[in-house]
């Protein structure tokens, strides 16, 4: 072991107290790369986005299809977007809680002590999880196609819907990342998030037409942001169309990220 190369003294270095946008993006991409390596080493991390779409699509379609739409085939245009939204929302919860588990390890202390963009460890981890949403979306569509679904919006409609879902899920995951950072433990976040999300996803237009619901519930299901997401996806998948619900969803996603990304980074920096 030879002597290490001579160190440049602290006072002779050129230093900036600011990190450029370019460095921020580079740092985030490097962190996303780290997330992908971890996923490859730990494929069980992907179980939920592999099995939930398969299980839910088969289960709900055959269970409700006859009762709600008369037969399975005519239920598919209604249920597939519903399951897509439900799957992607639960997947984003898991993303947030997994981030928290990651943060409890010593490596995040090192990230904090390095001259990198503060947002990069968080943004990068959430970016890597885009792969989870891609898997969930693809598998749900494939299951639908196998069961006889013919998307009226064609390939463009399906791709557009997928892009909307994935982008929405990424923005949404910042909410759970925030709760992940401030909560005492990762499992408590998952528990509470599920209690909130279960009614949000079911009390929507995901599985049944809202007209059949009693007045108060109908009101809630119509207001529910998840319903807007589902309607936007149905428009795209079944008709290749973009209506008001699409823009509402996009606006909602932007509002979420504008509020929760800075909050999350700030909370993350405060944790010792």
């Amino acid at each position, binding site marked *: 072991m030879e002597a290490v*190369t001579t160190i440049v003294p602290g006072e002779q270095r050129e*230093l*900036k107290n600011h990190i450029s946008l370019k460095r921020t993006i580079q740092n985030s991409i490097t962190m996303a790369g780290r997330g992908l390596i971890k996923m490859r080493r730990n494929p069980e991390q992907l179980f939920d986005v592999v099995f939930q779409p398969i299980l839910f699509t088969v289960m709900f379609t055959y269970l409700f299809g006859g009762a709600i739409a008369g037969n399975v085939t005519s239920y598919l245009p209604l249920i597939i977007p519903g399951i897509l939204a439900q799957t992607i929302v639960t997947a984003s919860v898991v993303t947030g809680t997994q981030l928290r588990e990651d943060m409890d390890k010593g490596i995040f202390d090192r990230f904090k002590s390095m001259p990198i963009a503060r947002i990069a460890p968080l943004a990068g981890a959430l970016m890597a999880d885009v792969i989870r949403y891609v898997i969930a979306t693809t598998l749900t569509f494939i299951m639908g196609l196998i069961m006889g679904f013919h998307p009226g919006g064609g390939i463009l409609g399906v791709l557009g819907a997928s892009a909307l879902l994935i982008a929405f899920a990424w923005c949404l995951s910042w909410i759970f990342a925030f709760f992940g950072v401030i909560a005492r433990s990762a499992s408590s976040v998952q528990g509470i998030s599920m209690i909130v999300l279960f009614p949000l996803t079911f009390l929507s237009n995901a599985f049944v037409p809202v007209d059949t619901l009693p007045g108060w519930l109908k009101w809630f299901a119509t207001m529910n942001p998840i319903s807007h997401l589902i309607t936007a996806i149905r428009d795209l998948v079944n008709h290749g169309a973009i209506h008001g619900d699409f823009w509402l969803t996009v606006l909602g996603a932007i509002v979420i990220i504008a509020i929760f990304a800075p909050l999350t980074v700030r909370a993350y920096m405060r944790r*010792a």
Partner: protein
Amino acid sequence: MTKNKSLAIEVKGLQKVFGDNKAVDGIDLEVPSGMIYGVLGPNGAGKTTTINMLATLLGPDGGTAKIFGHDVVKEPQIVRQLIGVTGQYASVDDKLSAIENLVIFGRLLGLSRKEAKAKANELLEEFGLTEAAKRPLSKFSGGMRRRLDLAASLIAQPPLIFLDEPTTGLDPRTRNQMWDTIRRLVKSGSTILLTTQYLEEADQLADRIAVIDKGRVVAEGTPNELKRSIGAATLQLQISSEAHIAEARSIIEKVLGVKTQNPEPKLITAPMKDPDTVTDLLVALKKAGIKLDEVSVQKPSLDEVFFALTGKEKTAKKGEK
């Protein structure tokens, strides 16, 4: 300003409060460039909290800290470019291999893919980890992890390195390797701030030591200055025959010029100020025909250091964190 620049670390009245516990209660430190500075103290004395504040991981509640003249609160990104931190718990990624860890850190620091790989290989070689480079870290021993952790801190060749209890939990052989590595680092021009619970470690490595207790600096100086302030080592002589005790004591007192004690029937203890005089003493005892069963030297322990410096028993500090 020019005066401050020659200091690697300048800390004035640094404070950190957790609830009603003053973890760091007004610490002052001045660490000149190019030396190993030891921060010695028991668990819960505030060592890690202090390092975390200096490394910009934790905001101070009072006082100021400057790294090469840059304030840790006002210029955190500059400070981060000047430091490397190796914590008590290895801050590397378990799921990744050694080389993947180092390449990611290199990339984060702005190296190209190629440069990051080259740097990683260079460091793995230097720390004797080349053979384990592709193994997942879960198969690494504690010593290998610490070495990798230290290697990760050196990618940017920072002029100041924080080592938080770098050898806690390591076996003696690995600990000696770590000591060699630390000595080599300082030769290359780095400044090192090292925390430890072990007096011996501070003694072996540090050019200057600050002893901290309950979030305050209770003593500061070179290892020799501190030892002198604490008291010298004790010479213990086990005499074969009780009949010779009185004679032996008078010889010891005459040769060493100190007072002796006789705590057990055949045991004589004496403070040992100058180890050279011990040879004379042994010769004198041999001439007088006094047989010895055992000769040993008792160094001051950390407990004694704290007893001497704080006037309290170490056990009284239990339950603090």
